């Protein structure tokens, strides 16, 4: 106890240049945070393209005719709930509870998959009716933006499965814990992107 206090006192006194490298846990998560922010900047360019082209329907259907609010509401609920269960999973990971981790991951995966299924059904319906990405500039921008988010969700689901295999094989090894921390950052960031998607694309599109 005294040693720990003394050590933390020493650390406070040490200048930043003398303190040595930050723990790997901090460096890895911070690096991934930078990646996520650049990923969000990429989404910003797609959002900008969509906002510019939103009225360029070329005589084709507009958002108000295409979008189903009920489906969007369910997708939103699925993704928000999966973000919540992902948070609970990361708590289980931190206290090294295997069962809680698997259960949290399973619920997160199932909700993410439900989201993806609804989105793919929406896309398929539109393409079958001839309102695919080649119909108008608006639809090209729509499929690029929403599809890019869908691809991210797909990648997240694959990542989650891989992580569960790693937990099974290696247990709560520090490396596995760092990767799981990065995964939960990724999943929460995807939910933030979705907040802007349902606001800008769907809710504003339904009104216009």
């Amino acid at each position, binding site marked *: 106890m005294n040693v720990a206090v003394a050590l933390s006192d020493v650390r406070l006194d040490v200048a930043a240049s003398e303190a040595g490298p930050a723990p790997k846990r901090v460096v890895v998560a911070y690096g991934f945070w930078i990646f996520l922010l650049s990923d969000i900047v990429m989404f910003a360019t797609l959002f900008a393209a969509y906002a510019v082209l939103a009225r360029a329907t070329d005589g084709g259907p507009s958002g108000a005719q295409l979008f189903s609010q009920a489906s969007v509401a369910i997708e939103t609920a699925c993704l928000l709930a999966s973000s919540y269960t992902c948070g609970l999973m990361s*708590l289980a990971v931190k206290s090294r509870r295997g069962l809680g981790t698997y259960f949290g991951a399973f619920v997160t995966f199932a909700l993410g998959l439900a989201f993806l299924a609804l989105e793919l059904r929406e896309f398929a319906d539109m393409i079958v009716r001839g309102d695919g990405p080649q119909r108008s500039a608006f639809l090209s921008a729509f499929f690029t933006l929403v599809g890019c988010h869908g691809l991210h969700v797909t990648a997240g689901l694959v990542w989650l499965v891989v992580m569960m295999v790693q937990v099974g094989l290696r247990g709560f090894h520090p490396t596995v814990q760092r990767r799981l921390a990065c995964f939960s950052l990724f999943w929460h960031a995807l939910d933030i992107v979705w907040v802007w998607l349902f606001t800008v694309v769907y809710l504003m599109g339904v009104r216009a």
Partner: protein
Amino acid sequence: MTDNASDRPPGEPSMPAEGEERESAGVLVYTIGLLLAVGLTATSFWVANTGLLWGPGVPLGLVVLAVAQMGIHLVFFLHITTGPDNTNNVLALAFGILTVLLVVVGSLWIMANLNDNMMPPPELMNLHMRH
């Protein structure tokens, strides 16, 4: 060892206590975040569909609600705080938001300007026709 003096990685909650207590505190934070996010989402859907509000103001209201919900997600799910151990995370986030704003607002602004200036107004067209 303890690295209280150093930075906290993004996505990691501050730890008030050990063991069981810490876990229930963590669950509480996520649950508060979920409830707030659900409330804001429901408000967004209501605002988009109601006839009670002034129509032209609705898009602005939706943007404000989305900003608020993004804040909720950042604070309650990603555990970004204003504490000194979070300075690096907040600075990176601020730069990201600045870039996003420049890209989105700049694109919309310049494209609206182009749209306005490319098409001559009808009077001007008539003037050209007469000559």
